[in-house]
């Protein structure tokens, strides 16, 4: 274990009324003309020591902005944030000793260096003794199944293998608080599973470690996180354990209908049916998938009638247990995919 672990309060991360506004230049000619983009507003969060906390939301929701503030890369425009008991604005150097971050899809490091050399280089920026750094590199590469590539130049790695190397970089310095921003982005199913196992075992080994994870994979958040905060348009809409969040929908009836052509039937028309609370729609090949959140199962009859009257061919009907995706739909009114399609500005 690290000897420099400071005395921790019970909170690994504490965020109070945090806000961030970006001023974006409109065009090159009018340099003073700037548009304000609110990335975060009034965010309050408390992450306990030892927790695996998930930030869940679509692209552009403000997850990465929050991560950047907590990792001292960005200053908030209002409010305050503390990591491991230290203010990220007033004590950035102290915070930096205690944290690390890995982002999905990053291309950090140098292509002409081998995997081991790249990881060793980053370990030195945190002051790790070379001998211990090399031992940890070998152990961690073995855990993620990359030990046979230790002497491969990183430019020769595939995107997925490179991401595994990045994940190892994050764990290498044994931070008190680790931030993972979409860590499984670009990884195949097996590699994602390995990464999730590494995350779990790292936390279980020492309960003073804390991990903050952003993802827009609901299943990942559900499987991994002790608690999740659902973020949209810079605001925290809900924050609790996945089971408590899903329980809020437990009394509702959730159905998924796979149908043929919609024949002019719209989501808003379906939402007008008595007992129908939320409907989301997505295309799946030649068919359409409609997800319903109903106040009670009896409302399904009205839905079926409406579909039949419109001549919509019903191919399949599934009743399912609530998921975090349903929680998101219930809170935002649209699915995460729909939000991303309608508001496709870049994630900050």
């Amino acid at each position, binding site marked *: 274990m690290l000897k420099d672990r400071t005395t921790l309060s019970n909170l690994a991360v504490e965020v109070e009324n945090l806000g961030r506004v970006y001023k974006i230049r409109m065009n090159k000619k009018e340099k003073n003309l700037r548009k304000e983009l609110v990335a975060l507003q009034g965010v309050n969060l408390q992450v306990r020591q030892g927790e695996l906390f998930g930030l869940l939301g679509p692209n552009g929701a403000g997850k990465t902005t929050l991560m950047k503030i907590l*990792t001292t890369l960005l*200053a908030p425009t209002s409010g305050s944030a503390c990591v491991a008991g230290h203010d990220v604005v007033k004590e950035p150097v102290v915070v930096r000793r205690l944290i690390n971050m890995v982002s999905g899809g990053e291309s950090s490091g140098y292509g002409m260096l081998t995997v081991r050399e790249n990881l060793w280089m980053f370990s030195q920026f945190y002051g790790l003794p070379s001998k211990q750094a090399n031992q940890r590199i070998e152990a*961690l590469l073995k855990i993620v199944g990359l030990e046979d590539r230790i002497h491969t130049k990183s430019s020769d790695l595939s995107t997925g293998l490179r991401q595994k190397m990045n994940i190892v970089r994050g764990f290498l310095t044994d931070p008190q608080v680790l931030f993972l921003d979409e860590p499984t982005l670009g990884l195949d199913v097996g590699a994602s599973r390995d990464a999730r196992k590494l995350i779990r075992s790292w936390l279980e080994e020492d309960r003073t470690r804390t991990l903050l994870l952003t993802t827009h994979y609901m299943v990942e958040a559900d499987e991994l996180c002790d608690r999740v905060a659902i973020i949209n348009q810079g605001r925290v809409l809900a924050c609790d354990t996945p089971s408590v969040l899903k329980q809020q929908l437990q009394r509702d009836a959730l159905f998924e209908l796979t149908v043929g052509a919609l024949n002019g039937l719209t989501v808003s028309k379906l939402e007008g049916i008595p007992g129908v609370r939320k409907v989301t729609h997505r295309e799946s090949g030649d068919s359409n998938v409609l997800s319903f959140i109903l106040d009670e199962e009896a409302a399904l009859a009205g839905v079926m009638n409406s579909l039949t009257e419109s001549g919509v061919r019903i191919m399949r009907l599934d009743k399912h247990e609530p998921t975090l995706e349903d929680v998101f739909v219930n809170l935002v009114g649209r699915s995460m995919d729909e939000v991303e399609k309608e508001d496709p500005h870049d994630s900050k």
Partner: protein
Amino acid sequence: MTQNDPLAIQSFEKATGWRLFIKTVIARAYPRIIGQQREKSWIFFDIFLPMLAVSSYVFVYRAIHAPEEYVGFVVIGGAMTAFWMNVMWSMSSQLYWEKEQGNLALYIMAPNSMMAVLLGMAVGGMFATLLRAVAIILLGSLLFHVQYVVGNLVQLLAVFFVAMTALYGLGMMTASLFLLLSREADHLAQLATEPVFLVSGFYFPIKSFNFWIAAAASLIPLTLGLDAMRQLVFASGPALGFLDVRVELIVLCGLCVVFLFGARALLAYMERLAIREGRLTESRR
């Protein structure tokens, strides 16, 4: 994945303060000292191509029956252009490329000093370029039978070391500046290449200029460094020198201080700006 692998191998203490600073310098120098040598094309681009430019000047000087020392001047100048190119393309533009690659955010987020990162780049670049410069001098001297007369080796080493410190200090300072200028920096670097080749006297003694042009050119550390080195390694060097070597050494020391402090101030400004505006650590790719 195996479940039994211990993630915390044993107790260890992380370095802080000066130990962390030195570790960072060594680590950041490593890709340049070791990594860059793996790309064998450097032998062609960094030795063969500069040798072509050196050769053309040598043939011109011999065709017009210029003093034979001019051949030596050109060989030394050709070797020193390697340092200028390294400073322009691998120091000044480097933070911009680090940003594009996603490394800059990791550097800022780490507990190390950014000055140590820049110093590591400089030390690594200097070492790697030294190999190229030595190769050009050896090859040029052998091909064109250059005669050296080194009277004061200590002074020669001092001039070289101080000139390099000032030159890489300039590179460290412009690295932050070029990062702020983003893509425009590439154009600036291109724009600066040939004029600097001219006014620094890479291929002829700067005494050929009038005093004020030579004095203005002396703001580029290579100008005085090159002039002083030529005075110290060629018999007719002092006669063709711009200022006395000791004066040039003092001016170079002054440039070291100015550029290194400038680098520190600009780096701190860049880091503050990056954190305040949040755009400098964003890749535009």
